[in-house]
């Protein structure tokens, strides 16, 4: 079904998550015309808050966000999955979740906003492992700051707590006063171990910021902050729209059209939910559709000119899938009551294993003491133990105040065999295949996880812990990266240091899909910094055009 009228703009962006919407905002504010095509619907916070309250399985982060049938996302992290089909020896370790709706996956992120370390960009040079990026930390530093200002990141004073990523400016907001549980954990680690607990940089308001309120400690950052004290992509959508960018919801991009020389992208095509097809032309195109959907779109756009998919002369589109696959344990502390779950969910981290010479053989990691309300879990546990009445109430109070949960983010490594392909057996209602990922954990990550398990056992001992519950196997951390990898050599990479595809001069990618290594912190601040750098490049090129 052809559309009556073609849409056109200077810059056409696919995806309205933090990457796409922040580029749209920057460009629209510079007077550049922008269209953002978003596969999912417009949504509003209050309905998700209500969905959360009515959810039986509260720890299910996807639970409050049902997908629309034309833009499906993984319904949960269960393998086999109804949408993201994972295979291979560590299929379960790659069962990522994400959202397809206006504003993207940060509706249910936790706001942890780390800059990477300079070494993260030079893993090959420094440690002989994985790959180097085609840019250095210093190239990104100004954009890290711009991203921190955009999101409203609070963090420690660098002269008091240096997180290892050199800063030219202080954090936009003062550090968050940490919870009693976090204070006790910090004290214990500081006094009884050679390690330290640092204040996690986080996109969470410690004062009113960007017309959003101060954090009230609802402890529901994942899956949904009820008041918007935590940044998410929807705020960049609102700002971009106010500056004149056009957002088209329910627009599922399925094809990337190029000129006869196959050098420039001329249009993208999208389906509306009735499978009406629309063509959108522009001067520049940015794919910002999340690591998994970006690679899927580029592969699905294969045609006679590019039989292996768009921007894929290297054959690396869909390869090098990485994550911060982790380890998780919960236990009952034998020490004083901590009452975790008062305040934000993730605020304090052991960062001693973020960098060191040992990175030549095992991956780096961060440890979170998850400050999560444990009342419901405590109640389930106490009922299962057979308590009733007064004794049940005693148990609930004790378990809720003494349960400790630790998890880690362990560094993955680019391996071309870890690969995303189009499902041959499942497609959605528009006829677009589901994504499929083969995953085998790199030895580098396995060794890192082993090290973490040892540390966790020490910490459990230190806290006189009992009733250990280890999450079986490995824990996917929803930080997929690498599917359109960055590099200097077009033969083994998809984009250059500016996130421009080697094959098509006006096609950029803004996503963790460009990461050459997955680094040692949560990914999104780096996604945003790279996206803002793309916006900067586009502004300059359009000004000269």
């Amino acid at each position: 079904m052809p559309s009556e009228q073609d849409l056109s703009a200077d810059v056409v962006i696919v995806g309205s998550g933090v990457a796409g919407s922040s580029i749209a905002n920057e460009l629209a504010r510079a007077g550049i015309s922008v269209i953002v095509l978003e596969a999912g619907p417009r949504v509003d916070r209050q309905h998700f808050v209500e969905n959360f309250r009515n959810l039986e399985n509260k720890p299910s982060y996807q639970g409050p966000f049902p997908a629309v049938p034309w833009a499906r996302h993984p319904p949960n992290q269960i393998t086999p999955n109804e949408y993201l089909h994972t295979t291979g020896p560590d299929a379960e370790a790659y069962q990522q979740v994400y959202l397809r709706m206006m504003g993207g996956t940060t509706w249910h992120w936790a706001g942890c906003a780390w800059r990477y370390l300079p070494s993260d960009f030079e893993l090959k040079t420094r440690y002989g492992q994985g790959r180097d990026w085609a840019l250095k930390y210093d190239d990104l530093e100004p954009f890290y700051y711009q991203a921190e200002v955009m999101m409203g990141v609070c963090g420690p004073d660098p002269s008091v707590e240096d997180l290892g990523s050199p800063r030219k400016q202080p954090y936009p907001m003062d550090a968050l006063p940490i919870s009693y549980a976090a204070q006790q954990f910090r004290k214990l680690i500081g006094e009884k171990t050679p390690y330290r607990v640092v204040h996690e940089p986080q996109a969470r308001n410690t004062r009113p910021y960007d017309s959003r309120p101060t954090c009230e400690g609802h402890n529901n950052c994942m899956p949904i902050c009820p008041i918007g004290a935590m940044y998410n992509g929807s705020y960049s959508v609102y700002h971009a729209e106010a500056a004149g960018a056009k957002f088209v919801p329910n627009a599922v991009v399925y094809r990337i059209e190029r000129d006869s020389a196959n050098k420039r992208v001329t249009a993208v095509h999208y389906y509306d939910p009735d499978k009406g097809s629309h063509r959108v032309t522009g001067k520049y195109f940015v794919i910002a559709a999340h690591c998994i959907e970006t690679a899927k779109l580029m592969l699905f756009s294969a045609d006679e000119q590019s039989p292996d998919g768009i921007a894929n002369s290297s054959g690396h589109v869909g390869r090098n899938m990485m994550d911060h696959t982790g380890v998780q344990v919960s236990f009952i502390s034998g020490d004083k009551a901590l009452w975790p779950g008062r305040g934000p969910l993730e605020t304090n981290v052991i960062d001693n294993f973020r960098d060191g010479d040992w990175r030549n053989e095992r991956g780096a990691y961060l440890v979170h003491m998850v400050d999560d309300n444990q009342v419901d879990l405590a109640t389930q546990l106490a009922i299962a133990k057979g308590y009733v009445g007064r004794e049940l109430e005693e148990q609930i109070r004790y378990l809720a105040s003494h349960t400790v949960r630790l998890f880690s983010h362990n560094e993955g490594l680019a391996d071309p065999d870890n690969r995303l392909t189009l499902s041959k057996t499942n497609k959605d209602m528009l006829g677009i295949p589901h994504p499929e990922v083969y995953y085998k954990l790199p030895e580098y990550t396995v060794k890192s996880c082993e090290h973490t398990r040892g540390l966790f056992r020490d910490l459990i001992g230190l806290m006189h812990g009992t009733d250990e519950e280890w999450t079986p196997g490995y824990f996917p951390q929803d930080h997929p990266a690498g599917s359109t990898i960055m590099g200097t050599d077009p033969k083994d990479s998809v984009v250059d240091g500016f996130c421009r595809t080697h094959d098509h001069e006006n096609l950029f990618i803004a996503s963790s899909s460009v990461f050459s290594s997955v680094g040692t912190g949560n990914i999104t601040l780096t996604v945003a910094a790279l996206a803002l750098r793309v916006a900067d490049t586009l502004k300059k090129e359009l000004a000269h055009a």
Partner: protein
Amino acid sequence: MAADRPCFPTSIHRSTPNAIRLNRALRMSRRDALLGALGAAAVVTGSRQGMAATAGQDDTGVPLFMALSQRLTDRDTLDPRIGNALYAGIINAVPERRDQIQKLHDFMTGGSFASARALASAAEHQDPVFKDVIQDIMTGWYRGLADHKVVVYRSALMFDITKDAIYPKTYATGGPFYWTQTPPEVAVPTGEPALSPSKLVIEPT
């Protein structure tokens, strides 16, 4: 290739020209199980009709359920509106529960049990199925769940007994940075379980 079967009408975006109506469609449908729609009506009217709307045909089961619930929670008062909705959910999920609740009630009134623990352990000894009935009742009142639905969230007893320390997620009212303050200490419990232990099955996410 297997194409997805749409989970709700795919023309939904067209029937909803404005975002708000589309969003309404995106809300989970099982929310109607909530108290507002169920028990409240029963309490306001206080009539057989109101009860029947909640508990199906069997309004006579509700007082038995409430009496059992009071004994098993060691509490003199429980909210009857919540009780109505929990009872309806429990017997809807497992119809045999209606009969089992009646029998457990008979067992309770046939003896003299001074505590929840005394009743629960004797009941399991009498008939192992009573353990499941009791755990449904505990899950209902303490977690606010019945029939895999949320009957109440904020008013679940687990939050009542921890309210001096912590808030249900999304309902924090402690004031600026309340979380920095020292919460109450909790003594190591000395009470014994009443029922045999079960394996804790955590729902996958």
